[in-house]
């Protein structure tokens, strides 16, 4: 009887393990280096229609590459310090960049021409995010000066400064419905702000991280927000309620970047522990782990997760191309 029980348990264990392997193999990727910056790549952003990706670097340049072939289209120069982040506008016509030279710059994506220099932050600018609503010309930025600023880039005017973080702010995200901004900070909080021009107090403060929060990003339906911190933790929040949905012990080292796929459920994270991971944001299940062999600062993916773009500490820009596995589907791309 005991033997039969042991045998059944053994068989059950084997089936569970095989199932796990099948699930793990559901997402199989191969890595390819498509180009190189002269120094560490700090930011990556895929545009709305999945045809271009922008990267920015410690080498003070921004590069725009084609998707899916990875051909270099433009190298944008003009910043006078490392470029910490980039963001395409919702209509893919413009690109915003944030730099340690204390400026936000706006570029024409087609010509590579610099259109505007936005000055007003009093310390390094770390985060930048274009409004994804085509009818507005708003750009949000965060800085080590602890503020979040909202700009009308066409007028070159700073229209709102938001203050409530007690330490440097690290990154900012614009919700895709255009209603709110999220900012994260070394003060271990995420603050949600209204984009209307009169409200200057945060709508809410999200508590849950116990380390500096390095990034935050909305899902395309604006119903989720993901944040990551210096201890390798990701938290998924339900929006607009701010309820904590899932806390994932995701990486062994800091996670500088996370991003949602077009299905609003699959999420990618990249870390200085040299791995890139895909997650189910609802269950917290790890769908794929890829050891890149290099520290990864930044990550984004096309809407069906067919290509994951990595910005690496050795200056390389790499693509993880999916060889097999289900598509995560839907129409929207970008971060």
């Amino acid at each position, binding site marked *: 009887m005991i033997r039969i029980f042991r045998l059944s348990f053994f068989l059950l264990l084997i089936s569970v393990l095989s199932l796990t392997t099948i699930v793990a193999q559901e997402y199989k990727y191969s890595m390819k280096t498509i180009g190189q910056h002269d120094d*560490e790549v*700090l930011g990556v952003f895929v545009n709305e229609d999945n045809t271009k990706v922008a990267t920015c670097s*410690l080498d003070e340049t921004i590069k725009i590459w084609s998707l899916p072939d990875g051909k270099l289209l433009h190298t944008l120069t003009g910043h*006078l*310090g*490392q470029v*910490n982040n980039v963001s395409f506008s919702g209509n893919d016509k413009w690109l915003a960049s944030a730099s*340690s*030279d*204390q400026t936000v710059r706006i570029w024409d994506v087609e010509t590579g021409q610099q259109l505007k220099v936005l000055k*007003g932050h*009093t*310390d*390094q600018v*770390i985060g930048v995010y274009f409004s994804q609503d085509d009818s507005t010309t708003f750009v949000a930025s965060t800085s*080590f*000066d602890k*503020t979040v*600023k909202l700009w*009308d880039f066409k*007028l*070159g*005017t*700073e*229209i*709102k*400064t938001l*203050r409530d973080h007690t330490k440097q702010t*690290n990154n900012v995200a614009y919700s895709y419905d255009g209603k709110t901004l999220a900012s994260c900070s070394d003060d271990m909080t995420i603050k949600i702000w209204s984009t209307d*021009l009169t409200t200057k107090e945060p709508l809410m403060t999200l508590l849950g991280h116990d380390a*500096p929060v*390095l990034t935050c990003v909305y899902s395309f339906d604006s119903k989720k927000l993901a944040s990551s911190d*210096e201890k390798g933790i990701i938290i998924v929040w339900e929006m607009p309620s701010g309820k904590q949905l899932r806390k994932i012990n995701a990486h062994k080292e*800091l996670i*500088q970047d996370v991003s949602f796929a077009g299905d609003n459920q699959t999420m990618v994270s990249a870390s*200085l522990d040299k791995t890139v991971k895909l997650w189910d944001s609802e269950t917290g299940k790890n769908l794929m782990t890829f050891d890149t062999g290099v*520290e990864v*600062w930044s990550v984004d993916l096309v809407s069906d997760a067919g290509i994951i773009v990595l910005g690496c500490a050795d200056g390389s820009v790499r693509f993880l191309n999916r060889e097999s596995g289900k598509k995560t589907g839907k129409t929207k791309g970008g971060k």
Partner: protein
Amino acid sequence: MKARIFILIICAFSFFQSLNLKSQDNLVNPVVAVTGTVINAVTHEPVSVFLIVLDENGKRVNATRSNSAENGYYYLPSLKPGKKYYITINHPNFCKEKFEINIANTGKYLEISRDFQVSPLQQDVKIPLAVPPFEYSKSKLRVGAEDFLAGIKSTLINNPQIKFEVQCYPDNDNDRAENKKLADDRANTLVNFLAANGVDKSRISAKGFDSTDPNNPPPKTKKAKGKKYIGTSYIKFTQL
């Protein structure tokens, strides 16, 4: 005769109509408020100071106070779109400052934002240059450094009584002799820049250090982005 009277009436009507339109235009012509904070450039604490707004001709058009109890907040209403203004700050504990502000030519916004930093007027205070004007291991001013130095240059020009020392630190702690040379060269580069841009050279001394800044040392471990290390530079007030 009738025709003349008719023409006169028409002319008078047009004249009054145009006056009326002008006054209406004045009534609907939008004004903008500028809001923001004033903070101490060294401690980054909010400060209470008096802000005076001058137009392009130097005529006083408005004034207000920033409030340190409210994060250094100030509010300046009634500025006209498309105009350039100067905001002057004059307080016994801070350097005299003059900031240029351009109001965008649009009626789209009722309020725009602008923050100001003021340098404390204290013996031996060290004003950090927030963005390093040098590249790693180099002592020549990097392209565009004039932009980063515009603020401190203006402060020093607006406060001609202050004597000061330019202090520079190296980027690493490898070779002390090399570091000293680099830091000295950087300090001299800044002295020459300031002297060439309207600051009396007799007010300035230069000092380079052979090791990294103890108040802002290079990071020992890899931190989040935005932390590439280049040796710091300061303006230290030696005589007020």
